[in-house]
């Protein structure tokens, strides 16, 4: 379980076929939607 992973990391934007999950803090739902749509 990883925190503070930047959006460019493989764990953030590639398909991870392993027990790895990242948890990041966001200021708003809109910000998160931006990250989700950007990968």
């Amino acid at each position, binding site marked *: 379980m990883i925190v503070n*992973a930047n959006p460019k990391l493989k*764990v953030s934007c590639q*398909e*991870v*076929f*392993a027990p790895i999950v990242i948890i990041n803090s966001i200021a708003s739902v809109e910000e998160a939607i931006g990250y*989700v749509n950007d990968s």
Partner: protein
Amino acid sequence: MVTYDFYSIKDDRVKMVTFTGSPEVGIGIRSKAGLKKTTLELGSNAAVIIDEDVNIDSLIKRCVMGAFSNQGQVCISLQRIYVHGNAYTQFVEKFVAATKKLKIGNPMNLDTYVSSLISERETKLALKWIEEAKQNHAQVLVGGKSIMGFLNLR
């Protein structure tokens, strides 16, 4: 090797085509399937967004299961959780605690929840990606190491 020139994709008697694999092949299937239903699983990095005014406790179990069922080797496995700053610390603490409770071990035991990955190659790849994250200022709060070929979650 999958070829999307399979006769069955074009055959009118076939009503539905499902495929799990690369986007290139998936697009090829879709373009040849005509009016058939198609279900394509072409890889993803599935995310969950958690707003500030939700009941965290009700989400922890579901998120842990989504991330770690079958060792995360599912095409819709949960890979990213974005939590509103006001709920973030609480969510992370509870998620870590719940993850530490998962039983790791022999996949033949019924009470085992997490076991080894499909191959040593996949385990090494996962460790490499974790290492990349660590070198770029991310922190591993639980797990992240290989113990006897397992990606440990302790």
